[in-house]
């Protein structure tokens, strides 16, 4: 799967799991804690949804908020898992 496609799906997941974020203004490279108030719970919801949509598995340590600065970092982990 192309990275662009993963990013597009990630946008849809964010829209679904974090409806409070304005979907038109999502910047995958922006700091997600500062810009969108992402916390451990919202990140885990995004990851669980991504696991189902991409058919990948995150291990328990990959659920940690401090592993990622932004949604693009999550996209890159998914890209690695799909290779």
């Amino acid at each position, binding site marked *: 799967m192309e990275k662009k496609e993963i990013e597009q799906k990630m946008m849809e997941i964010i829209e679904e799991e974090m409806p409070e974020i304005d979907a038109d203004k999502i910047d995958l490279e922006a700091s997600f804690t500062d810009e969108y*108030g992402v*916390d*451990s*719970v919202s990140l*885990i*919801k995004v990851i*669980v949804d991504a696991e189902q949509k991409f058919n990948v598995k995150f291990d*328990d*340590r990959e*659920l*940690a908020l401090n592993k990622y600065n932004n949604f693009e970092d999550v996209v890159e982990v998914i890209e690695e898992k799909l290779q």
Partner: protein
Amino acid sequence: MANKAVLSVKYPAITSWQWHATLFSILGEDENAKKWIYSNYIQLRCYNIAEYTTGDEILLCDMMPGSSSLKECPYLIFSLITKPQIDSYCGDVIDFIVKTIDLGGYIYGAFDEARMLCDVSVDYKFSHELFIYGYNMEEEVFYVGDFTFKDKYSYTTVSFEAVKRGFDALSAGEDHVFKDDYKGTRGLYVIQKNTDTKYYDLDTVLIKNTIKEYLGGEDTKNHFRMMRNRFDDTIFGVNVYDALLKRIDKQLHEEEPDFDIRALHIAYDHKVLMLDRLKYLMANEVIPFDQAMLDEYSEVVEDMLAARNLLVRISVTGEIEAGSRIADHINSAREKDVAILTKVMNLL
């Protein structure tokens, strides 16, 4: 009176309970205060208790000193002000808070945060500690640190009106902060930073003795008996790991599973602070620098974080059977924690 005044705060290294988040917000970066902080917060304890808001049984886990730390810390000047005093001095809680901040005082106390969030009168009350560190007269807001307004510990603003509503909504018997210690009174704490003079040296004897007690799971409530002697079922030190395992198993296998992460979160915060302590002891040449030891202890921190996050994940997915992996993470953390702290104790 200024138009705006904001006292200094730094996002706290540990956020599990409001008393810790408040103390670390005020003192976390102060070099004198670090000597007191790293000499304490080593012993861990837990016990079962009915939660004051819901009556549900929870495993209350905390480091020592716990909620009394704001009073006991030598770098804070701590005053309690009763509601009749506030009414008499200022006639209005907003005026009292603004004047207190102008004098360099932080505010800490119980507010009905359900009433703060909702303008309409509701039957449900949520008495919770609020930390106030600034105000803006033009915008009519206070700067606060709290868990309620953004789902995690955050610095944010709340309106003067909401703070007044939250304060007025609680009667004396409902102020859980004052209820036990001050016999059913209602009031607020004023906390001032007092860090210019060094009052406390890093206490390596206390650190060593407390690590020994932590590793032995020793019942240390007698150390604090002059302040608290109500609990006979308290579990200490590394035995808290067993209590966590038992509690999580019970939570996940109830008819309606309970996903309360607070006990796991404080256990995680305890490891975060222990890792900071090890770095501090090494940086100050109290123990020799040992990168391998820091790396190993980082694994303890990661194990506890993985355990906590896995419980959150189970709350989202409902995969109760994944609970066995929580036990794996906790057991792994325990084994490394004991091995490393035994080495540290022998180095001190």
